[in-house]
């Protein structure tokens, strides 16, 4: 069994509509990319800390972080931007997807009949990386990210974009089979 490793790459976005090119360096043992996942750590708007520490813990409603006037009528705007990845060996872009700033259950502070304040809005089940199957020979992937949330809100939003690359490696250690790989096998068996 091949070993699967996760590579974490971070980059900062500070300007509205920012287009950022960056490179993801893979391990020298990597021979295939099997999954891509993304995440956003929203720091603040305009690069300043906007929330003063309070004595009691509290979840700030989204509207306090981003102006309410700019929100879409149908609800919370959580598309941070679009990420495209290109392997050095291939001309085509092998991954292109919207990056979403996941939101915790919005009704967290509202009591319900059972007083259970939990639930992850964006995790209705479990998260899993998006499967790709890209053999790699060189150790670099080109990445292009376009900010969307700042452009939409017409202001600078500072955040850290994280890209998780799941790759198969030919290292001598025991293999690790993550859940999404297992699901893939089950799906093919069916």
């Amino acid at each position, binding site marked *: 069994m091949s070993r699967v490793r996760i590579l974490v790459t971070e980059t900062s976005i500070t300007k509205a509509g920012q287009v950022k090119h960056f490179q993801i360096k893979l391990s020298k043992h990597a021979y295939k990319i099997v999954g891509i996942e993304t995440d956003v750590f929203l720091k603040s708007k305009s690069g300043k800390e906007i929330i003063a520490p309070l004595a009691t813990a509290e979840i700030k409603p989204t509207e306090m972080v981003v102006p309410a006037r700019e929100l879409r009528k149908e609800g919370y705007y959580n598309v941070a931007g679009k990420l495209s990845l290109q392997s050095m060996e291939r001309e085509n872009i092998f991954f292109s997807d919207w990056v979403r700033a996941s939101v*915790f259950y919005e009704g967290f502070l509202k009591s319900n009949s059972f007083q259970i304040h939990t639930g992850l809005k964006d995790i209705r089940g479990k998260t899993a990386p998006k499967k790709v199957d890209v053999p790699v020979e060189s150790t670099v992937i080109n990445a292009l990210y376009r900010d969307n949330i700042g452009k939409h809100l017409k202001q600078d939003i500072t955040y850290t974009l994280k890209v998780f690359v799941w790759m198969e490696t030919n290292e001598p250690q025991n293999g690790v089979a993550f859940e999404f790989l297992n699901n893939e096998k089950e799906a093919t068996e069916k």
Partner: protein
Amino acid sequence: MLKYYSKQFDVQITEAGKTVKKTFEVDKSVKTIYGVCILSNRDDLAYYRGSFRLEINKDEIYADGYSTKKIMSSENVEPNKRCFYIGKIVVGNGLITFEYTDSEDGRTVFAPYVVSLSVDGERESEI
């Protein structure tokens, strides 16, 4: 005879923006670990602010900076399926290293909280 094993290891997060590293030792009877998930008494803080690194038997399973939210399950998931399967990993020296990093996120305000690493595995039992 191998039986089901499950245990939670707690890490106290008392300061914002800090990394807490802890090494736990599992019982000698534990042979393999095949599932992990993260729980917290403040799900929202762990969800927005957390990232971690996990090492079992000196073998890195999740790289440093991997988001906590990616291995949290909602209550919509069946209780016996909330852990994330990582294949059967031989425990070996029985050491689990968990490094949790709290980082600022504009949507939350820090308050001390506890993050629990829950592991599922197999233990040897004579009964």
